[in-house]
């Protein structure tokens, strides 16, 4: 080790070995992989509720005798940091994985498939197909589910009632009409709010609007169709443009709102509608945190034609590092977190729902009386379950350029919202972006 370091310095000092050095560096870092090196499982995740995670891990160590070395990482920089660690040869043994990054992390050789490991088939048979699809890449399975969520329309039933509406809108036309009424009655200046400031997280609501109307931006071969055979994206963008600029029911401030301020506005009765993840309802309906508690309801995302087509879902999973030296223990941990326990119950999935309302991938849990009882406190279990049934993951997660496309898409949608880009130009530009990226990565 010591010698290696000196070598590195010497080589670096000579400045001629730019190619060799990373190799040497990687060699320095205890052999092939990462890991804690003391036999414990090195586990990393973004820092959502890190204290609860640690408690749950302590419980695992008590029952299994496997030591876990857990490091929570700032959520906004989680992906970047994990990439840096794996590139440097110091990645964890087990880790959280966004469905957004799965393809890249498999291609980058960070993760290994878990097909054939004990219990995996059972898990995949027990979860919603959309979640199974999101955790599969090129025919191989890479994760056990941490949580999932799907997008819904969240509305303030109180404000709707004041405006004379007893039912939430089923179509986008109705949504706009209800919002116009609310606006004209002076109840709210802008009844609809959406988080549309640029950030590194995906804009679920755009995908949600497209999927709820039965459209898609890409076909199954990941070729862009939003500019050709599928007009839904363009129609949705047209609707957004009108809502923001003609009927002015969509708050122009959306362009500088991140998700948290939108949550705050919903909880303060300042918007009647938003499109968001189901689990937000738990917070919105918590009297300690929200002035709107008890009034917030969920519905399917309205569609262009008012019929039910689907919605978007995301899946967060536990993955297994390719180079782990403690594979057995790491997989035990994975099973504890994302699989079934001895009594065939998805223990941790249930734990997260009960503690924080995180959505579960397991179909059976929807019928669990404890879950239903807890769910009733903040949402309608029937709609909650229906959303899970109809939800699909984004079908371009498997392409290497997905992140670039998503980022570009945010900018294009911002252009439509601020009336600087026409919907037809917007979809053309999206298709062109996809084409350019595809070429760049070929």
């Amino acid at each position, binding site marked *: 080790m010591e010698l290696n370091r000196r070598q590195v310095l010497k080589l670096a000092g000579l400045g001629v070995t730019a190619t060799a050095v990373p190799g040497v560096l990687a060699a320095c870092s205890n052999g092939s992989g990462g890991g804690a090196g003391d036999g414990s499982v090195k586990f990393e995740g973004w820092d959502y509720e890190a204290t609860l995670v640690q408690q749950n891990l302590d419980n695992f160590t008590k029952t299994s005798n496997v030591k876990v070395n857990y490091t929570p990482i700032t959520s906004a920089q989680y992906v970047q940091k994990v990439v840096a660690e794996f590139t440097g040869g110091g990645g964890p043994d087990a880790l959280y994985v966004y469905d957004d990054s799965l393809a890249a992390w498999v291609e980058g050789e960070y993760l290994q498939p878990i097909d054939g490991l004990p219990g995996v088939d059972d898990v995949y048979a027990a979860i919603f197909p959309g979640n199974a699809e999101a955790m599969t890449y090129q025919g191989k399975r890479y994760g056990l589910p941490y949580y999932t969520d799907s997008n819904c329309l969240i509305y303030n039933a109180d404000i709707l009632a004041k405006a004379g509406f007893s039912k939430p809108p089923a179509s986008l036309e109705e949504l706009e009409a209800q919002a116009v009424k609310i606006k004209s009655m002076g109840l709210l200046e802008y009844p609809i709010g959406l988080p549309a400031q*640029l950030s590194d997280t995906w804009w679920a609501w755009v995908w949600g609007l497209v999927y709820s109307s039965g459209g898609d931006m890409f076909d199954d071969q990941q070729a862009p169709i939003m500019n050709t055979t599928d007009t839904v994206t363009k129609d949705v963008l047209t609707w957004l443009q009108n809502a923001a600029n003609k009927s002015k029911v969509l708050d122009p401030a959306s362009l500088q709102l991140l998700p948290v301020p939108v949550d705050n506005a919903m909880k303060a009765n300042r918007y009647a509608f938003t499109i968001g993840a189901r689990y937000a309802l738990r917070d919105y309906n918590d009297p300690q945190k929200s002035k709107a508690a008890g009034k917030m309801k969920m519905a399917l995302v309205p569609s262009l034609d008012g019929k039910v087509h689907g919605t978007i879902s995301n899946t967060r999973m536990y993955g297994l590092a390719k180079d782990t030296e403690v594979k057995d223990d790491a997989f035990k941990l994975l099973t504890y977190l994302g699989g079934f326990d001895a009594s065939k119950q998805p223990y941790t999935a249930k734990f997260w729902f009960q503690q924080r309302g995180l959505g579960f991938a397991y179909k059976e849990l929807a019928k669990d009386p404890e879950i239903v009882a807890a769910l009733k406190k903040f949402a309608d279990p029937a709609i909650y379950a229906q959303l899970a049934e109809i939800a699909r993951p984004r079908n371009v997660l498997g392409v290497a350029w997905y992140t670039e496309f998503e980022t570009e898409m945010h900018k294009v949608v911002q252009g439509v919202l*601020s009336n600087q880009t026409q919907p037809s130009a917007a979809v053309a530009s999206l298709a062109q972006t996809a084409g350019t990226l595809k070429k760049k990565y070929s």
Partner: protein
Amino acid sequence: MSVLTERRPLGDNAKAWALNAPAIVVISLLVAYPIGYSFYVSMQRNNLKRPRAKRFIGLDNYKALLSDDAFLSALKVSALFVLVVLGMTVVLALLLALVLNERFRGRGLLLSLALLPWAMPGVVNGLMWRTIFDAKTGALNGLLTQLGLIDSYQAWLTSGTGAFLFTALAQVWNTLPFSVIILLAGLSTIPSELYDAATVDRAGAFRRFTQVTIPWLLHPLLIVLILETMNAFRAFDTIYVLTGGGPGDATTTIALLDVQTVLTFTDFGLGSAYAWVITAITLLISVGYIGLLYRKGNFEV
């Protein structure tokens, strides 16, 4: 200068390099390799998520920049950002330094306040201004409404121009102190005889300023220009927190695009090429500044 020519003891060369050795060792150990490596990477197709596609491509990354819309747009935004930030910083810092160079009640307090923004990390600065510019609950909206200047709360960061200007304002606030101190320091060394002489010549305040103050301040001013150009070109924290680069591309500076390319898109090769373009531009500008100093004849190293 006369002192130097008097006597030049032998061994100055060796002594000087020995004195520089510790700094050189630390710098070359720690950054020489990363800098060299990044230049090498800039000539690679090197996306961290596709390790198998990695290969040497010479100057292709650089050639591709010419038709890279994202890059060209970011370069434009950056150029404008540097111009606006630099302009505001220099004018405000000079004015503030001139004020602080006078004697008046509360001068000490104002000087302390002038140091305040320096102590604020860029991330915190971004968070602070985000709270202030907030469309729903922001202090700026509150203040302007109470003063009767606006009728209702505005979403300041939703138009391209608005976002750009407010981001520049936030950046200037954060970087002002360093320039103020350097300029104030320069002002405080102007011999009063110079002013007296100018007064004898019956020069008005404005002419005194242009004929005495400005020439004397040239050197500190150029230091401010170099450092603030470097800073503005690399400004990242504040913009990232405040607008994330939006709306659209309005505040996507080259620094922001570079961070996004390397960290979010994991395109290490292209990102390194971006970085070297930034380096080349900053170097050119700095050399330009230094050349200016040479012409004035008072740059000595």
